[in-house]
Protein backbone atom coordinates (compact mmCIF):
# COMPACT_ATOMS: atom_id res chain seq x y z
CA UNK A 1 0.00 0.00 0.00
CA UNK A 2 1.54 3.29 -1.00
CA UNK A 3 1.13 5.76 1.76
CA UNK A 4 -2.42 5.52 2.98
CA UNK A 5 -2.14 7.22 6.37
CA UNK A 6 -5.14 5.36 7.73
CA UNK A 7 -3.50 2.93 10.14
CA UNK A 8 -2.83 4.45 13.57
CA UNK A 9 0.95 4.47 13.11
CA UNK A 10 0.42 6.21 9.78
CA UNK A 11 -1.12 9.12 11.66
CA UNK A 12 2.46 9.81 12.66
CA UNK A 13 3.02 10.97 9.08
CA UNK A 14 0.29 13.58 8.81
CA UNK A 15 0.80 17.25 9.72
CA UNK A 16 -0.06 18.75 13.11
CA UNK A 17 -2.96 20.82 11.82
CA UNK A 18 -4.79 17.76 10.56
CA UNK A 19 -4.21 15.86 13.79
CA UNK A 20 -5.48 18.81 15.84
CA UNK A 21 -8.67 18.93 13.74
CA UNK A 22 -9.28 15.22 14.23
CA UNK A 23 -8.42 15.28 17.90
CA UNK A 24 -10.77 18.22 18.49
CA UNK A 25 -13.49 16.05 16.91
CA UNK A 26 -12.74 13.39 19.52
CA UNK A 27 -10.24 11.18 17.70
CA UNK A 28 -8.06 9.87 20.55
CA UNK A 29 -5.67 8.15 18.10
CA UNK A 30 -4.90 11.51 16.49
CA UNK A 31 -4.32 13.07 19.90
CA UNK A 32 -1.97 10.27 20.88
CA UNK A 33 -0.03 10.81 17.64
CA UNK A 34 0.38 14.47 18.66
CA UNK A 35 1.51 13.39 22.13
CA UNK A 36 4.08 10.98 20.70
CA UNK A 37 5.36 13.66 18.35
CA UNK A 38 5.74 16.52 20.84
CA UNK A 39 6.04 14.58 24.10
CA UNK A 40 9.85 14.41 24.07
CA UNK A 41 10.33 18.19 23.81
CA UNK A 42 7.63 18.74 26.45
CA UNK A 43 9.48 16.32 28.70
CA UNK A 44 12.82 18.02 28.04
CA UNK A 45 11.38 21.43 28.91
CA UNK A 46 9.64 20.13 32.05
CA UNK A 47 12.85 18.45 33.19
CA UNK A 48 14.82 21.69 32.93
CA UNK A 49 12.06 23.71 34.60
CA UNK A 50 11.29 21.36 37.47
CA UNK A 51 14.75 19.83 37.79
CA UNK A 52 13.14 16.48 38.46
CA UNK A 53 12.58 13.52 36.18
CA UNK A 54 9.53 12.30 38.10
CA UNK A 55 7.93 15.73 38.27
CA UNK A 56 8.58 16.19 34.56
CA UNK A 57 6.50 13.14 33.67
CA UNK A 58 3.69 14.31 35.95
CA UNK A 59 3.86 17.69 34.23
CA UNK A 60 3.72 16.12 30.75
CA UNK A 61 0.72 14.04 31.76
CA UNK A 62 -1.15 17.01 33.27
CA UNK A 63 -0.28 19.15 30.25
CA UNK A 64 -1.62 16.56 27.82
CA UNK A 65 -4.81 16.25 29.87
CA UNK A 66 -5.30 20.02 29.76
CA UNK A 67 -4.49 20.04 26.04
CA UNK A 68 -7.14 17.41 25.31
CA UNK A 69 -9.76 19.45 27.14
CA UNK A 70 -8.82 22.72 25.45
CA UNK A 71 -8.05 21.53 21.93
CA UNK A 72 -11.05 23.30 20.45
CA UNK A 73 -9.47 26.63 21.46
CA UNK A 74 -6.47 26.08 19.15
CA UNK A 75 -6.93 28.45 16.22
CA UNK A 76 -3.88 27.46 14.20
CA UNK A 77 -3.35 23.73 14.41
CA UNK A 78 0.04 23.98 12.75
CA UNK A 79 1.28 26.01 15.74
CA UNK A 80 0.23 23.33 18.22
CA UNK A 81 3.80 22.61 19.36
CA UNK A 82 4.20 26.13 20.76
CA UNK A 83 0.79 25.85 22.41
CA UNK A 84 1.71 22.53 24.04
CA UNK A 85 4.98 24.03 25.28
CA UNK A 86 3.14 27.02 26.76
CA UNK A 87 0.92 24.62 28.70
CA UNK A 88 3.99 22.62 29.74
CA UNK A 89 5.66 25.82 30.98
CA UNK A 90 2.66 26.84 33.06
CA UNK A 91 2.14 23.37 34.51
CA UNK A 92 5.86 23.14 35.37
CA UNK A 93 5.75 26.44 37.25
CA UNK A 94 2.54 25.37 39.03
CA UNK A 95 4.30 22.18 40.02
CA UNK A 96 7.20 24.11 41.49
CA UNK A 97 4.84 26.35 43.47
CA UNK A 98 2.98 23.34 44.86
CA UNK A 99 6.24 21.68 45.77
CA UNK A 100 7.39 24.81 47.57
CA UNK A 101 4.10 25.04 49.46
CA UNK A 102 3.85 21.42 50.43
CA UNK A 103 7.37 20.62 51.43
CA UNK A 104 9.80 22.38 53.65
CA UNK A 105 12.52 19.99 52.75
CA UNK A 106 14.29 23.05 51.42
CA UNK A 107 16.86 21.44 49.27
CA UNK A 108 14.47 19.80 46.94
CA UNK A 109 15.22 23.11 45.29
CA UNK A 110 16.65 22.76 41.84
CA UNK A 111 19.32 20.28 41.30
CA UNK A 112 19.17 20.46 37.56
CA UNK A 113 22.50 18.78 37.15
CA UNK A 114 20.94 15.69 38.71
CA UNK A 115 18.38 15.45 35.93
CA UNK A 116 20.92 16.29 33.28
CA UNK A 117 23.37 13.77 34.64
CA UNK A 118 20.80 11.00 34.67
CA UNK A 119 19.77 11.79 31.12
CA UNK A 120 23.37 11.63 30.04
CA UNK A 121 24.02 8.35 31.73
CA UNK A 122 21.32 6.94 29.46
CA UNK A 123 23.03 8.37 26.42
CA UNK A 124 26.75 8.14 26.98
CA UNK A 125 27.52 8.33 23.29
CA UNK A 126 25.74 11.66 23.11
CA UNK A 127 27.63 12.98 26.12
CA UNK A 128 30.89 12.02 24.47
CA UNK A 129 29.95 13.79 21.24
CA UNK A 130 28.63 17.03 22.65
CA UNK A 131 31.46 17.07 25.14
CA UNK A 132 32.06 19.06 28.24
CA UNK A 133 30.74 22.29 26.69
CA UNK A 134 27.17 21.11 27.22
CA UNK A 135 28.06 20.04 30.76
CA UNK A 136 29.48 23.50 31.37
CA UNK A 137 26.24 25.09 30.17
CA UNK A 138 24.19 22.77 32.38
CA UNK A 139 26.32 23.63 35.38
CA UNK A 140 26.11 27.36 34.66
CA UNK A 141 22.35 27.06 34.20
CA UNK A 142 21.98 25.16 37.45
CA UNK A 143 23.93 27.86 39.28
CA UNK A 144 21.61 30.66 38.10
CA UNK A 145 19.06 32.14 40.48
CA UNK A 146 15.78 30.26 40.12
CA UNK A 147 13.78 33.10 38.54
CA UNK A 148 16.47 33.78 35.94
CA UNK A 149 16.71 30.13 35.01
CA UNK A 150 12.94 29.91 34.53
CA UNK A 151 13.00 32.91 32.20
CA UNK A 152 15.89 31.48 30.23
CA UNK A 153 14.34 28.03 29.81
CA UNK A 154 10.92 29.44 28.86
CA UNK A 155 12.67 31.49 26.18
CA UNK A 156 15.33 29.07 24.91
CA UNK A 157 13.38 25.82 25.22
CA UNK A 158 9.73 26.86 25.01
CA UNK A 159 10.29 29.77 22.60
CA UNK A 160 7.84 31.97 24.47
CA UNK A 161 7.46 35.72 23.99
CA UNK A 162 8.19 38.15 26.84
CA UNK A 163 4.44 38.58 27.34
CA UNK A 164 3.86 34.83 27.53
CA UNK A 165 6.73 34.36 29.98
CA UNK A 166 5.40 37.25 32.08
CA UNK A 167 1.99 35.56 32.18
CA UNK A 168 3.44 32.16 33.04
CA UNK A 169 5.58 33.53 35.88
CA UNK A 170 3.09 36.16 36.97
CA UNK A 171 5.64 38.99 36.72
CA UNK A 172 5.89 42.09 34.50
CA UNK A 173 7.39 41.98 31.01
CA UNK A 174 10.03 44.46 32.26
CA UNK A 175 11.06 41.87 34.85
CA UNK A 176 11.22 39.20 32.16
CA UNK A 177 13.45 41.43 30.07
CA UNK A 178 15.77 42.10 33.01
CA UNK A 179 15.96 38.54 34.30
CA UNK A 180 16.48 37.09 30.86
CA UNK A 181 19.26 39.59 30.16
CA UNK A 182 20.96 38.82 33.49
CA UNK A 183 20.70 35.09 32.84
CA UNK A 184 22.18 35.46 29.38
CA UNK A 185 25.00 37.71 30.51
CA UNK A 186 26.03 35.25 33.22
CA UNK A 187 25.74 32.24 30.92
CA UNK A 188 27.51 33.96 28.03
CA UNK A 189 30.43 34.91 30.30
CA UNK A 190 30.68 31.37 31.63
CA UNK A 191 30.59 29.94 28.16
CA UNK A 192 33.18 32.27 26.65
CA UNK A 193 35.76 30.06 28.36
CA UNK A 194 34.53 27.13 26.30
CA UNK A 195 34.99 28.58 22.84
Amino acid at each position, binding site marked *: *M*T*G*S*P*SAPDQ*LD*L*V*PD*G*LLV*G*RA*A*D*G*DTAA*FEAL*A*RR*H*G*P*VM*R*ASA*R*RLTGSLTDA*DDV*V*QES*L*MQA*WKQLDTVRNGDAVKGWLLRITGSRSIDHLRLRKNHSDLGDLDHKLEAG*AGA*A*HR*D*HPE*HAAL*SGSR*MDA*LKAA*LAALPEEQRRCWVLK*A*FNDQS*YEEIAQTLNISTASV*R*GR*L*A*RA*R*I*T*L*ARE*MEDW*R
Partner: protein
Amino acid sequence: MSTPGDTLSCGHSLADLSEYLDTGQIGDPGHLAECPECQSGLASLRRLSALGSELLDADTAAAGSGTDDWMKAILGNLRLELRPGRSIPLRADTPGDVLTETEGSISALIRSVADSLPGTAAGKCRLHGDITEPGAPITVGVDLAVVYGHPLEQRAAELRWKLATTLARQTELNITAIDVTITDVLEPRMPDPQETP
Protein backbone atom coordinates in the same frame (compact mmCIF):
# COMPACT_ATOMS: atom_id res chain seq x y z
CA MET B 1 21.40 46.14 35.67
CA SER B 2 22.93 45.14 38.94
CA THR B 3 25.93 43.21 37.63
CA PRO B 4 28.91 45.47 37.10
CA GLY B 5 30.14 45.77 33.56
CA ASP B 6 26.73 45.28 31.97
CA THR B 7 26.87 48.69 30.37
CA LEU B 8 29.30 48.96 27.50
CA SER B 9 31.52 52.02 27.18
CA CYS B 10 29.43 53.06 24.16
CA GLY B 11 26.50 53.50 26.51
CA HIS B 12 24.44 50.49 25.44
CA SER B 13 23.66 47.82 27.99
CA LEU B 14 23.85 44.10 27.40
CA ALA B 15 20.16 44.06 28.33
CA ASP B 16 19.47 46.25 25.27
CA LEU B 17 21.35 43.75 23.12
CA SER B 18 19.55 40.82 24.72
CA GLU B 19 16.20 42.38 23.88
CA TYR B 20 17.38 43.23 20.37
CA LEU B 21 18.14 39.56 19.87
CA ASP B 22 14.49 38.66 20.60
CA THR B 23 12.63 41.59 19.09
CA GLY B 24 15.01 43.04 16.47
CA GLN B 25 14.36 46.43 18.05
CA ILE B 26 16.84 48.85 19.56
CA GLY B 27 17.00 52.63 20.01
CA ASP B 28 19.61 53.39 17.37
CA PRO B 29 20.15 50.58 14.86
CA GLY B 30 22.72 52.72 13.02
CA HIS B 31 25.04 52.68 16.03
CA LEU B 32 24.69 48.93 16.40
CA ALA B 33 26.04 48.22 12.92
CA GLU B 34 29.16 50.29 13.52
CA CYS B 35 29.95 49.73 17.19
CA PRO B 36 32.58 46.99 17.67
CA GLU B 37 31.63 46.61 21.33
CA CYS B 38 27.97 46.06 20.54
CA GLN B 39 28.89 43.67 17.73
CA SER B 40 31.09 41.66 20.04
CA GLY B 41 28.38 41.60 22.74
CA LEU B 42 25.80 40.47 20.19
CA ALA B 43 28.12 37.78 18.85
CA SER B 44 28.58 36.45 22.36
CA LEU B 45 24.81 36.38 22.98
CA ARG B 46 24.27 34.65 19.63
CA ARG B 47 26.81 31.97 20.49
CA LEU B 48 24.95 31.38 23.75
CA SER B 49 21.69 31.17 21.85
CA ALA B 50 23.20 28.52 19.53
CA LEU B 51 24.42 26.61 22.58
CA GLY B 52 20.91 26.84 24.04
CA SER B 53 19.50 25.21 20.89
CA GLU B 54 22.16 22.54 21.14
CA LEU B 55 21.17 21.85 24.75
CA LEU B 56 17.49 21.70 23.80
CA ASP B 57 18.28 19.17 21.07
CA ALA B 58 20.41 17.10 23.44
CA ASP B 59 17.76 17.21 26.17
CA THR B 60 15.01 16.31 23.71
CA ALA B 61 17.04 13.36 22.43
CA ALA B 62 17.75 12.32 26.02
CA ALA B 63 14.02 12.56 26.84
CA GLY B 64 13.51 9.50 24.63
CA SER B 65 11.13 8.76 21.79
CA GLY B 66 7.39 9.31 21.96
CA THR B 67 6.96 5.61 21.22
CA ASP B 68 8.92 4.59 24.36
CA ASP B 69 7.41 3.14 27.52
CA TRP B 70 7.33 6.45 29.43
CA MET B 71 4.89 7.93 26.90
CA LYS B 72 2.88 4.70 26.77
CA ALA B 73 2.52 4.95 30.55
CA ILE B 74 1.41 8.59 30.33
CA LEU B 75 -1.09 7.85 27.57
CA GLY B 76 -2.35 4.89 29.57
CA ASN B 77 -2.98 7.16 32.56
CA LEU B 78 -4.76 9.86 30.59
CA ARG B 79 -8.16 8.20 30.12
CA LEU B 80 -9.29 10.78 27.62
CA GLU B 81 -12.95 11.52 28.04
CA LEU B 82 -15.04 11.14 24.92
CA ARG B 83 -16.46 14.03 22.96
CA PRO B 84 -19.96 12.88 22.09
CA GLY B 85 -21.08 16.21 20.62
CA ARG B 86 -24.76 16.69 19.85
CA SER B 87 -27.35 13.91 20.12
CA ILE B 88 -28.96 12.76 16.89
CA PRO B 89 -32.45 11.27 17.30
CA LEU B 90 -33.19 7.94 15.61
CA ARG B 91 -36.54 6.47 14.60
CA ALA B 92 -37.77 3.97 17.17
CA ASP B 93 -39.66 0.85 16.09
CA THR B 94 -41.44 0.70 19.41
CA PRO B 95 -43.38 3.83 20.31
CA GLY B 96 -42.04 5.39 23.48
CA ASP B 97 -38.44 4.27 22.93
CA VAL B 98 -35.98 7.10 22.63
CA LEU B 99 -33.00 6.22 20.45
CA THR B 100 -30.12 8.52 19.66
CA GLU B 101 -26.65 8.39 18.22
CA THR B 102 -23.90 10.91 18.85
CA GLU B 103 -22.33 13.45 16.56
CA GLY B 104 -18.97 12.00 17.62
CA SER B 105 -19.91 8.60 16.25
CA ILE B 106 -20.79 10.19 12.89
CA SER B 107 -17.42 12.01 12.84
CA ALA B 108 -15.68 8.72 13.53
CA LEU B 109 -17.63 7.06 10.71
CA ILE B 110 -16.68 9.87 8.30
CA ARG B 111 -13.01 9.58 9.30
CA SER B 112 -13.00 5.82 8.83
CA VAL B 113 -14.46 6.18 5.33
CA ALA B 114 -11.92 8.85 4.36
CA ASP B 115 -9.00 6.93 5.88
CA SER B 116 -9.94 3.78 3.99
CA LEU B 117 -9.40 5.38 0.57
CA PRO B 118 -5.88 4.87 -0.79
CA GLY B 119 -3.54 7.73 0.06
CA THR B 120 -5.98 9.86 2.03
CA ALA B 121 -6.60 10.83 5.65
CA ALA B 122 -9.45 12.83 7.13
CA GLY B 123 -8.93 15.98 9.14
CA LYS B 124 -11.67 17.91 10.86
CA CYS B 125 -15.27 17.17 9.94
CA ARG B 126 -18.39 19.20 10.55
CA LEU B 127 -22.11 18.57 10.39
CA HIS B 128 -23.86 21.84 9.48
CA GLY B 129 -27.55 22.09 10.21
CA ASP B 130 -29.80 21.06 13.08
CA ILE B 131 -28.93 17.40 13.48
CA THR B 132 -31.11 17.20 16.60
CA GLU B 133 -34.18 17.71 14.36
CA PRO B 134 -35.18 14.56 12.43
CA GLY B 135 -35.08 15.10 8.66
CA ALA B 136 -33.47 18.55 8.85
CA PRO B 137 -31.18 19.25 5.87
CA ILE B 138 -27.56 18.58 6.84
CA THR B 139 -24.37 19.56 5.06
CA VAL B 140 -21.20 17.57 5.73
CA GLY B 141 -17.83 19.30 5.58
CA VAL B 142 -14.65 17.27 5.76
CA ASP B 143 -10.99 18.27 5.51
CA LEU B 144 -8.84 15.82 3.62
CA ALA B 145 -5.11 15.22 3.24
CA VAL B 146 -3.97 13.38 0.12
CA VAL B 147 -0.59 11.76 -0.41
CA TYR B 148 1.33 13.39 -3.25
CA GLY B 149 0.84 11.59 -6.54
CA HIS B 150 -2.77 10.59 -5.90
CA PRO B 151 -5.32 12.30 -8.16
CA LEU B 152 -6.92 15.01 -5.99
CA GLU B 153 -10.18 15.51 -7.91
CA GLN B 154 -10.74 11.79 -8.17
CA ARG B 155 -10.09 11.18 -4.47
CA ALA B 156 -12.46 13.98 -3.49
CA ALA B 157 -15.17 12.64 -5.83
CA GLU B 158 -14.69 9.09 -4.54
CA LEU B 159 -14.94 10.29 -0.98
CA ARG B 160 -18.14 12.24 -1.66
CA TRP B 161 -19.73 9.21 -3.26
CA LYS B 162 -18.59 6.80 -0.52
CA LEU B 163 -19.69 9.13 2.23
CA ALA B 164 -23.09 9.64 0.60
CA THR B 165 -23.75 5.90 0.38
CA THR B 166 -22.31 5.08 3.80
CA LEU B 167 -24.18 7.85 5.60
CA ALA B 168 -27.41 6.95 3.78
CA ARG B 169 -27.03 3.32 4.80
CA GLN B 170 -25.84 3.77 8.37
CA THR B 171 -27.59 6.93 9.53
CA GLU B 172 -30.97 8.64 9.17
CA LEU B 173 -29.48 12.04 8.43
CA ASN B 174 -30.89 13.99 5.50
CA ILE B 175 -27.57 14.84 3.83
CA THR B 176 -28.03 17.55 1.22
CA ALA B 177 -24.38 18.24 0.37
CA ILE B 178 -20.90 16.90 1.11
CA ASP B 179 -18.06 19.39 0.89
CA VAL B 180 -14.56 17.95 0.72
CA THR B 181 -11.72 20.43 1.28
CA ILE B 182 -8.22 19.22 0.47
CA THR B 183 -6.12 20.92 3.14
CA ASP B 184 -2.82 19.06 2.78
CA VAL B 185 -0.80 17.24 0.18
CA LEU B 186 1.42 14.81 2.06
CA GLU B 187 4.93 13.72 1.23
CA PRO B 188 4.83 10.09 0.14
CA ARG B 189 6.33 7.65 2.60
CA MET B 190 9.73 6.21 1.80
CA PRO B 191 9.06 2.88 0.08
CA ASP B 192 9.56 -0.19 2.26
CA PRO B 193 12.96 -1.79 1.61
CA GLN B 194 11.38 -5.11 0.57
CA GLU B 195 9.27 -3.30 -2.04
CA THR B 196 12.35 -1.85 -3.69
CA PRO B 197 13.40 -3.99 -6.65
